[in-house]
């Protein structure tokens, strides 16, 4: 497989139609509750999973926006709401000024070709009975697009774009490795020349050495075709590498959003601090530096019954009564850069350097470390 990717479109031509920075996608107060059914003999709704609970975000044309968080934080649901694979409970999604939050199939059809999705699992997201040519040509067929030179020619071009051999046109997905399948998924997403691609954990199912290939491919596509990306992942380092702006989610809410450097170097929200300090990092020679060490206790609480007020308060070391009573708004704090918003009553210092004392919330860890520290 070659890593040299030739793109069928000149970058200038692709970006020309769009003035830079136009707001492509705007989401406000987006909420999705999934009903929880229970009871016997008649099932009725006994509660709801508050998967996404009132988030606001905006994605500009050509930019790459990262959404990061732990499992169950609602990042994938957000992606599926934006592509309108799910219908929001409330709130609005507008794409280029058009409200699509409750649009029907017919109204969505033109928008759908402009918002495409790349899925996590390259094994289950490709139809095993279709050839690669049919899979990649499918979106064009459905939308009745006949590119000059025919669909087959365009499919071959796309295969070349994503670094696959165009002669593999008639092969089936099972003949490809995981990384190659993900490339097929990328080619399918590119088939309709979308303006926005929602990539939901596009590399987390791949081996480390293959991940980098796919990340580089996505980056090339993003830059050279001027496509905006909503990049959803749990791996903080990959999100940092790929996205210019990053939002951190926790239990259905965005707790912090801002420019890449601002979030990763000068985070304000305690959860962002904890998340960054938990990333296992390889430290190369000359890079050893003291990072802060924060170890939270327990797991993320259930989104069926989220904590009142600030949702992070049950695991936070700074929580006070105010945190339980009042939900912190997502605002610009003094000392943060423009556009760096944080939802916290008691924000942290904007640094990730080591503190005087580690924060260890986990009782077992604290007990063991206490024994180890005790002078013999």
């Amino acid at each position: 497989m070659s890593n040299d990717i030739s793109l069928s479109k000149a970058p200038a031509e692709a970006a020309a139609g769009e003035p830079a920075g136009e707001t492509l996608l705007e989401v406000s107060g987006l909420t999705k509750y999934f009903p929880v059914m229970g009871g016997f003999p008649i099932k009725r709704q006994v509660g709801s999973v508050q998967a996404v609970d009132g988030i606001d975000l905006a994605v500009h044309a050509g930019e790459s926006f990262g959404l990061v968080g732990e499992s169950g934080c609602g990042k994938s649901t957000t992606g599926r709401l934006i592509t309108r694979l799910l219908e929001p409970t409330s709130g609005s999604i507008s794409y280029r000024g058009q409200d699509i939050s409750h649009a029907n199939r017919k109204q969505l059809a033109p928008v759908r070709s402009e918002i495409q999705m790349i899925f996590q699992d390259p094994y289950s997201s490709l139809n095993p009975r279709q050839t690669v040519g049919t899979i990649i040509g499918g979106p064009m067929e459905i939308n009745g697009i006949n590119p000059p030179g025919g669909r087959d020619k365009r499919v071959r071009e796309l295969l070349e774009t994503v670094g696959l051999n165009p002669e593999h046109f008639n092969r089936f997905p099972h003949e490809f490795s995981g990384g190659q399948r993900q490339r097929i998924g990328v080619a399918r997403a590119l088939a309709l020349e979308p303006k926005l691609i929602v990539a939901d954990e596009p590399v987390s199912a791949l081996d480390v050495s293959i991940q980098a290939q796919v990340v580089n491919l996505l980056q090339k596509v993003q830059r050279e075709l001027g496509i905006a990306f909503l990049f959803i992942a749990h791996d903080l380092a990959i999100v940092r590498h790929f996205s210019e702006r990053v939002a951190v989610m926790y239990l259905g809410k965005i707790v912090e959003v801002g420019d890449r450097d601002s979030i990763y170097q000068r985070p304000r929200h305690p959860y962002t601090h904890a998340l960054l300090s938990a990333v296992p990092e390889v430290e190369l020679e000359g890079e050893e530096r003291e990072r802060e060490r924060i170890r939270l206790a327990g797991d993320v609480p259930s989104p069926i019954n989220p904590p009142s007020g600030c949702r992070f308060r049950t695991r936070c070391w700074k929580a006070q009564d105010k945190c339980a009573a009042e939900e912190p708004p997502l605002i610009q704090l003094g000392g943060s850069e423009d556009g760096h918003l944080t939802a916290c009553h008691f924000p942290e210092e904007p640094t990730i350097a080591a503190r005087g004392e580690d924060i260890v919330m986990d009782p077992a860890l604290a007990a063991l470390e206490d024994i180890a520290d005790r002078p013999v």
Partner: protein
Amino acid sequence: MTTMTKPEEDAVPAAPEAFLSVRDLYVRFSTEDGIVKAVDGLSFDLERGKTLGIVGESGSGKSVTNLTVLGLHNPRTTEVAGEIVLDGQELTGASNRTLERLRGDKMAMIFQDSLTALSPYYTVGRQIAEPYVKHRGVSKREGRARAIEMLEKVGIPQPKLRVDDYPHQFSGGMRQRAMIAMALVCNPDLLIADEPTTALDVTVQAQILDLLKDLQQEFGSAIILITHDLGVVSNVADDLLVMYAGKAVERGSVRELIHEPQHPYTWGLLGSMPRLMSDVTEPLTPIPGAPPSLLSPPPGCAFHPRCGFTDLVGGGRCSAERPVLPDGRGSACHLTDEQKRSVFIETIQPRLG
């Protein structure tokens, strides 16, 4: 209640010879498509109280090696050759009875997926107590007390109540803690952790890794930590072994391996991972191609089809001759030591920035 420490071992200084020694291990599976050479001539040593990290991609043979150490492979389809010596006892070809006596007592394992590794039918407490009752011959009541003690050690809140819960009532992180409790219940000398944190969230992963590290200090077990994430092992392990296509390609202490990696595959692994400190304008340097099929691994050095430095060796040596991994620090590569050093410093290191 029993005491947690083993005073007789604390008194004896660590024996200089390896506690676990694997020599020229070959593991082959017969499948319909042919013979899979899952492990192909692997040797390593592990001292008491040390942690060995084994790094490799899927299909590199890292899990199979450790299942073989525990004797958990299917004897009908698996052919094992070589030596596995645990504390002076030969394990290859040992009877099932012998292995049964060792498993859960002297050696234990933590699996990746705690939901499938724990039985849904028994309470967590009963599963933790089982090896203790079996190997120590204590009563069920004592076993239960021990289970509660262990649950408390690994940080399960309200252990007296949670001991009677079933695995599905635990969250992912708590289940992994319960598995650690189960593995440590008999104070094993050898603990094998196969991707213990891969299924967990990053904040929980950090808790579990620190817990393993702290518990190791208390219990003095030797740990083999299997993972695909260099970041995880570099924070936890003392020594590292990098595996590729069933063979060890590089070995050394964590410091040596991260600061002066010698094998092109290790360079590739380091270059493919974005890090929190790396330069975002610099594209990643992936390893081209895909891992080979173990049905017919490439001749010579298994990495040569993906390696960018075969020209430096020249003469087609890479595709003809299999490089040998020296004992101790070293790498299985035909490049000379001088070449390895200069290539790393001149081409690889600047790109990692």
